[in-house]
């Protein structure tokens, strides 16, 4: 019973902060509300038995992504003090679409019997399978499966991250080499 209330509260906070993310006129506020939403989701993960994931969420999302966002907002702030109008076009178009989308997914959920649908068999070494088949997925189980069944994806992911880093650097670097060299020479001579 208390569990249910707890779930309800957490879920409410998640939704509320999500709405505030998309409705705050002030961009920094929006970023901060996103942080709240992400932390709240981490709490949900914990309640759903994914403690490892909850930790990763806080680390990466809240610590990394939110920080990145703040930097992004700061770097692209207009210096003339004028603020960017927050919403574009007609908000009704977006609201209607979002509502319809939610309706469609809800209809699908309602129509199907999610609890009792058959489970697809997983492939892998018997030890992993036994662990995987257990009702509780522990961090150990995740680790095992990560490095056995999904090892290829794991390695490729590291490559992806490398590519992302390089790409971000390349896209965002300044192109006025002349000025930089000039500065470097000026600094070197002084």
């Amino acid at each position, binding site marked *: 019973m208390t569990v249910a209330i707890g779930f309800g509260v957490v879920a409410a906070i998640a939704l509320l902060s999500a709405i505030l*993310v998309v409705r705050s006129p002030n961009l920094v506020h929006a970023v901060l509300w996103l942080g709240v939403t992400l932390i709240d989701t981490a709490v949900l993960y914990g309640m759903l038995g994914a403690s490892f994931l909850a930790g990763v969420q806080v680390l990466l999302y809240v610590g990394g992504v939110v920080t990145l966002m703040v930097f992004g907002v700061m770097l692209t702030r207009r210096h003339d003090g004028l603020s960017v109008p927050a919403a574009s076009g007609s908000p009704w178009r*977006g609201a209607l679409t979002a509502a319809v989308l939610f309706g469609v997914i809800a209809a699908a959920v309602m129509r199907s019997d999610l609890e009792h649908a058959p489970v697809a068999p997983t492939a892998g070494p018997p030890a992993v399978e036994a662990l995987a088949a257990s009702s509780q997925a522990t961090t150990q189980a995740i680790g095992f499966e990560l490095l056995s069944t999904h090892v290829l994806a794991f390695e490729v992911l590291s490559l992806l991250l490398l590519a992302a880093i390089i790409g971000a650097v390349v*896209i965002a670097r300044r192109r006025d080499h002349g000025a930089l060299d000039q500065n470097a020479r000026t600094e070197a001579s002084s």
Partner: protein
Amino acid sequence: MTLSTSILLAAAMFSVGVYGLLTRRHAVAILLSVELMANAANLSFVAFSHFRGGATGQLFALFALAITVAEVAVGLALVLLLYRTYGDTRTDAAKELRG
């Protein structure tokens, strides 16, 4: 808390993210909405994993998380470029592809 409820919560957060995606004009704000949507998807993965057993759901969420982080990095780099090119972060500033 049942599986259906969790999925509905995830669907709701996803829809909110869609609303933000379609409505907000600032490029960073759009990225925030995308973040929300990814987060909702992850939530549904974890919910399935918890209620149906198996580690696959959490693994997918893990991967998705990592990929989303990479995507945010590149996305912000693009926002910086956008700002530098147009002097403005509003998405309707970049209309060169208008037919």
